[in-house]
């Protein structure tokens, strides 16, 4: 019988989907602990105010209420920590104001937690929360970065004068200045990267539990990285040692980055559980999610490119103001620095680059990594700037890209902003995308649209990104307060089936399938004999979790290393059984055999021997077949590619419709093509969302205007075109799989292609750039301004 092909390269169906689509997933809110109480967070509806008093007596007296806590009760506990320390230009450390789990003295954004009410039912907790008497003195507030650094701006934190968290830079300022002075031309672009709300389908939830007989705490939480939460909350906030704290992140319904961070609510329910000796559950309402899940992006930048007369890039200068929100979220500080400015070379040979990044506090929800995390901001800036260079010089957008691409034979390529790219072929992805999108046939399609009274445009982005942030030693020297390796434990059971314990976490990505395929490939056993377990610090040795498209490149590589150990041990057992030399035992297709003979032992026989060691080299070898590996990558991986978007605009309304979208990405080795396609399509849906629809709008004083789905526009199926996804892969040269990552390429590569297409459609109206989201009104206004003489439609 021929075994079905289920290894690397097979589009096998996702093992996890049956439970998800049949409603049998097990999410935090599905869990209930014996004796559980319910917590409701009383949140500030003021962006900035002094807390004069909180009278809890009426709430405490309300039916079912067990406790009410405010910042006074938790003031002695630790600050919610920031995981990455950035240094200012002068070498001094960034401002790192205290981030209390319950507001102390002041509230600093709408959604900041004033008090927690804990009662027998959620309903009772909500009722009692309305009985809190809270006296606030409103303070002037700021929401955008420019206002935050204006002279005389209200200050959020005493520890951050002028609202500046850090003023950081990277690159060669003198070199850039010299190149600018000598350049043929310098082209400038001001642009913003709009603020987004991640909006995972499952709202955040947490249950804190405490066993007074053992002193053990358990936190069930919607997290992308339970071990990181255990460390951050245990060591920094609550002072609980790891062996007394278990963190479980079961099925999680989407994260997109927003569930990486350690949030106040997790600490509140865990700490309260210990105080009360009861389990305490909290689940966010959707409105709470809008005002408390870390937001994404929110940059304002000026970019300048110096070029020679042929359009060759000579130097790039970038000046970025980025919004941290009211407090520092876990990785907030790294996103606009090491995940952004280090990417500013993009796919181009720009020889000198200098970037300055100023991070500021405002009275808004904290901002942190959101699908792409820094790289979408970099890709948008570079790709838009390249288009504008083409526009201003009259050069062709594609020609100027090809002229400046890093050549195929230049890898490994050292950029002027620290990173060294291991592999890539930007010409290959560009050419494949142009062919699939019928770039050459566009003028005819544009003319056909014009004949129908429509404006048609085509946009292109030839982006690059970096995944699997590493190595630990390097990130440590740059301020990271954690290692960035990954861990895998491969447990072979006596009859030869395998459980994989991975330190990564799957919250929709399909790891239970992709990672099982790695086992199929390496150990030669059927997919049905492999299960992947994740999301529980009591089961998994350790792990850094899932973000930055690292799970396969880093977590999968750890699995390969652990399976190498399994195979090595298996060969020793086989050598004993087959009375041969270990050096002569080869492992292939699930069989250990003596090279050049037909004598072999199956993987299952070896596993059984390891656990029933009757005939076994017991003097030299321990029984059992269970191996763990920690894998610390040597470098980032560098996916990249080309996205092409075609839009048609209705000039009467300004409504843009995406009529075609093609993505050709280089994601390295593809384990499951179907899952890659799904990941890229989902990423592009979010990229289109950012480009056309989504916007976390604050008024100038810190009120969140788009605080519900009635005003925050999510992309919907009928907003999206058919998306053609293909890959043109070069292998990562430094990890054993050759994989680079595919989780974020869609969200990174697509926004500049969409905006490029709209600007192209509007090219007769004298517009060289448009900020996101490109709403119908913005587009219509440009059309109106462009032809004032013509009658209104």
């Amino acid at each position, binding site marked *: 019988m021929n075994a079905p092909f289920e290894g690397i390269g097979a589009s096998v169906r996702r093992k996890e989907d049956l439970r998800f689509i049949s409603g049998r997933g097990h999410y935090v809110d599905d869990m209930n602990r014996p004796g559980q109480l319910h917590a409701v967070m009383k949140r500030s509806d003021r962006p900035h105010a002094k807390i004069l008093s909180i009278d809890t007596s009426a709430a405490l007296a309300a039916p079912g209420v067990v406790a009410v806590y405010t910042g006074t009760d938790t003031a002695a506990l630790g600050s919610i920590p920031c995981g990455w320390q950035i240094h200012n230009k002068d070498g001094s450390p960034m401002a790192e104001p205290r981030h209390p789990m319950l507001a102390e003295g002041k509230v600093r954004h709408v959604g900041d937690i004033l008090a927690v009410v804990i009662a027998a039912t959620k309903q009772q907790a*909500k009722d009692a929360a309305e009985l809190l008497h809270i006296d606030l003195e409103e303070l002037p507030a700021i929401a955008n970065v420019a206002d935050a650094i204006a002279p005389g701006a209200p200050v959020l934190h005493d520890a951050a004068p002028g609202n500046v968290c850090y003023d950081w830079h990277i690159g060669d300022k003198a070199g850039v200045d010299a190149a600018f002075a000598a350049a043929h031309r310098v082209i400038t672009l001001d642009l913003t990267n709009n603020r987004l709300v991640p909006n995972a389908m499952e709202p955040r939830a947490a249950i804190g539990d405490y066993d007074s007989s053992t002193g053990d705490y358990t936190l069930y939480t919607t997290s992308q990285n339970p071990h990181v939460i255990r460390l951050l909350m245990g060591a920094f906030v609550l002072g609980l040692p790891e062996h007394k704290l278990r963190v479980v992140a079961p099925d999680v319904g989407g994260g997109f980055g927003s569930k990486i961070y350690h949030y106040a609510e997790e600490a509140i329910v865990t700490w309260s559980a210990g105080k009360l000796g009861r389990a305490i559950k909290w689940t966010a309402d959707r409105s709470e999610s809008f005002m408390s899940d870390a937001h994404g992006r929110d940059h304002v930048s000026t970019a300048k490119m110096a070029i020679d007369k042929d359009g060759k890039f000579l130097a790039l200068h970038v000046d970025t103001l980025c919004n941290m929100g009211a407090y520092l979220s876990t990785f907030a500080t790294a996103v606009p620095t090491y995940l952004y400015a280090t990417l500013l070379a993009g796919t181009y040979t720009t020889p000198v680059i200098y970037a300055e990044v100023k991070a500021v506090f405002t009275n808004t929800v904290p901002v942190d990594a959101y699908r792409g995390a820094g790289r979408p901001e970099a890709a948008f800036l570079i790709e838009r700037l390249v288009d504008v260079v083409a526009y201003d010089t009259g050069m062709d957008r594609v020609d100027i890209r090809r002229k400046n691409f890093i050549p195929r034979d230049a890898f490994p390529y050292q950029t002027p902003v620290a990173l060294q790219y291991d592999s890539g072929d930007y010409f290959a992805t560009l050419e494949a995308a142009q062919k699939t999108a019928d770039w050459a046939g566009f003028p005819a399609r544009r003319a056909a649209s014009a004949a129908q009274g429509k404006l048609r445009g085509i946009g292109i982005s030839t982006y690059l990104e970096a995944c699997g942030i590493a190595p630990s030693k390097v990130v440590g020297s740059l301020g990271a307060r954690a290692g960035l390796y990954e861990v895998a434990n491969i447990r072979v059971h006596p009859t030869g089936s395998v459980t994989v314990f991975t330190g990564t976490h799957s919250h929709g990505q399909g790891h239970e399938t992709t990672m099982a395929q790695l086992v199929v490939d390496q150990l030669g056993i059927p997919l049905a004999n492999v299960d992947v377990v994740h999301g529980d610090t009591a089961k998994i040795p350790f792990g850094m979790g899932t973000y930055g498209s690292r799970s396969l490149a880093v977590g999968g590589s750890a699995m390969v290393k652990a399976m190498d150990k399994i195979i090595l041990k298996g060969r020793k057992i086989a050598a004993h059984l087959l009375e041969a030399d270990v050096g002569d035992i080869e492992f292939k297709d699930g069989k250990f055999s003596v090279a050049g003979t037909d004598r072999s032992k199956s993987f299952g026989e070896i596993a059984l021997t390891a656990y029933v060691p009757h005939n076994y080299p017991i003097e030299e070898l321990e029984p059992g077949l269970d191996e763990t590996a920690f894998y610390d990558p040597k470098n980032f991986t560098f996916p990249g590619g080309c996205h092409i978007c075609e839009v048609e605009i209705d000039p009467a*309304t300004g409504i843009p419709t995406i009529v075609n979208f093609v993505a050709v990405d280089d994601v390295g080795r593809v384990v499951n093509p179907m899952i890659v396609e799904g990941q890229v399509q989902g990423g592009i849906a979010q990229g289109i969302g950012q480009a056309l629809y989504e916007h976390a709008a604050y008024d100038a004083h810190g009120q969140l205007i788009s605080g519900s789905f*009635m*005003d925050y526009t999510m992309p919907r199926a009928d907003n999206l075109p058919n998306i053609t996804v293909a890959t043109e892969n070069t292998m990562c040269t430094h990890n054993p799989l050759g994989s680079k990552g595919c989780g974020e390429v869609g969200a990174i590569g697509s926004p500049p292609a969409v905006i490029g297409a709209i600007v192209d459609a509007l090219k007769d109206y004298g517009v060289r750039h448009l900020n996101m989201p490109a*709403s119908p*009104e913005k587009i219509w*206004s440009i059309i109106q301004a462009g032809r004032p003489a013509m009658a209104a439609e």
Partner: protein
Amino acid sequence: MYDFAYHKPSSVADAVALLGDSEAKALAGGQTFIPVLKQRLNKPSAVVDLAGLGLSGITVTATTVTIGASTTHVTVANSAEVKKAIPGLANLASWIGDVAVRYRGTIGGSLANNDPAACYPSAALALGATIKTNTREIAADDFFQGMFTTALEPGEIILSASFPIPEMSAYEKFRNPASRYAMVGVFVAKTASGVRVAVTGASQGGVFRHTAFETALSANFSASALDGIATPADGLNSDIHGSAAYRAHLVGVMAKRAVAAAA
């Protein structure tokens, strides 16, 4: 939501009696009311579910389409009789909100709520509908009295709405990209006695008749008849999705498209 008593009466008389309590509120499809309850923006003593009153159904005569208050949007959208008699009305119902909203939401709830961005009020006003309640019949011209305000007395229940069949009609809508309510919706109806044009979504005051358009279209029922007739931006809504000036422009675009679709 806050705690409340729940009643599901089976006669209009019982429902009226239950709604005699000034703190009691009627529930139809719940598409507006339930989110309001969940956000604790309303604290009724009792919720009176109208689903048991037998108020759903569509009756079409030679001159009139009558739709029971509990009839869902999807029922109207899919009704072959409505499509034939007043295609603009079926079309309007077919893209209210999203699928879930159309399967639960009702015409009675929509008219009673008179959301300034709702679709049905424009059809009722443009077609000159009559709204029948447990106590009287109210002409659409008198029924809508500004945003979220109608002629209904406390406790009064809409039983049905009757729409005179026009010669031609059509609805065009610029959807709010987030909620999919009408940012601007225009219903155009041509009858023997003239043309009526009602605009929803655009104005702070809720649905209104566009008399300048009506005059022009009564003289010449074609899209080009609206050329050069500007809609003043004063009093129109302005928000993150569109300024008053943009909405004023869209009123013209949607009206022309509706005329083109009707003709």
